[in-house]
């Protein structure tokens, strides 16, 4: 059997974490190629439904990246993300989907290395969890 290559959907905000990802690229930092980045204007734009739908349509993990608390371009967008993801993870666990498949973290525009490190860690974790089961994907 071929090696499991996780598919990870990554949502980044336009101002910090997307720029952080860009910096990782410009600085030629190596990180696993399993992520697909979707850029949002703010991590607060992310509806929890989108995360669930990503998992439902075959994403093995969802990584949500935003500005550090206090650095949000829209002042408090990431405050809401933090609260929403916390509730989302609870619901996922009750429904029987491993909440570790969803991770929220903060990456600033200057943290290219941190971006690479988070992606590497998360890919490793998802690889450990294995593919999202056929059960979840309808």
């Amino acid at each position, binding site marked *: 059997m071929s090696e499991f290559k996780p598919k990870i959907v990554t949502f980044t905000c336009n101002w910090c974490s997307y720029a952080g990802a860009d910096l990782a690229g410009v600085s030629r930092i190596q990180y696993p190629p399993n992520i697909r980045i979707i850029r949002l204007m703010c991590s607060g734009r992310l509806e929890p*439904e989108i995360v669930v739908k990503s998992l439902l349509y075959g994403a093995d993990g969802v990584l949500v990246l935003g500005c550090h608390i206090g650095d949000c371009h829209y002042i*408090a967008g990431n405050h809401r993300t933090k*609260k*929403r993801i916390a*509730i989302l993870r*609870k619901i996922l666990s009750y429904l*029987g989907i*491993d909440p570790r498949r969803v991770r929220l973290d903060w990456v600033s525009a200057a943290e290219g290395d941190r971006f690479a490190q988070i992606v590497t860690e998360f890919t490793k974790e998802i690889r450990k969890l294995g593919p999202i089961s056929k059960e979840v994907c309808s």
Partner: protein
Amino acid sequence: MIEEVRKLANEWLKTGKVDAILGLKEEDGHIAPHLFTKADELDSLVTSPKYPLLNTFRPLKRNILYLIQKNHRNAKIGVVARGCDERALIELAKRDQLNLEKIELIGVACTKDEAAACSCPKPYPRNIVVGEKVEGIPSDPDIEALLKKSLPERLAFWRYQLSKCIKCYGCRNACPLCLCQDCKLEQELWVKTGQLPPEIPIFHFIRFYHLADRCIECGECERACPVGIPLLTIYKLLRRDVKELFDYEAGVDVKQEAPLLTTLDETPMRSEE
């Protein structure tokens, strides 16, 4: 018990303490919410069986008290309210869906049997006018059973339960706090028309998530469900989580803002683990 409610309602209407009383009316064996304005109607006022009183009136997308208060701004309205109705009123007032200042409550405490049937943790309003306070039921066997299950077992359990869904929207329609003007469950993007059962678990997830910091555990969704999906299990768990994470309980204090609508400075969050 019902005699006391009627007597009090009669008194309030006659003395002009209130202009009208919102309660349940029994007619030809059917129960429905009714606005009592005349004292001689009060013979048909009932308190049981339980029936949604404050749910959103779908064609106008508002609850009944909002609609009354919109046209009669100074009307004083009495409401025959159980514990859950009172919590719903508070939560609705918090979300600008009605004006609590113009509302007088006839608080009715549920009987022991009623509390047991709902496995309600708080089967009484703050001011009990009629009835005796009985202690709530703190734990729910459904919750314990779900928490004992492993993740794959939970998934199998909910896949079976949610596959029964016939998408009647009963849970949403009966819910006093499903008040969004544009309901996500009616948007093609999230819920496709003509698909049965609706995509698991998106349809129900949307309600679980939206109600996480609103649910007041009235149990109307579960009672409305024609196929018996144990929806309340998850709402109860979420209520518990919101209490833990944000030290917040829906339907308790009008002044306390809903945590998912505020920043971390306004409502701090405890760490998850």
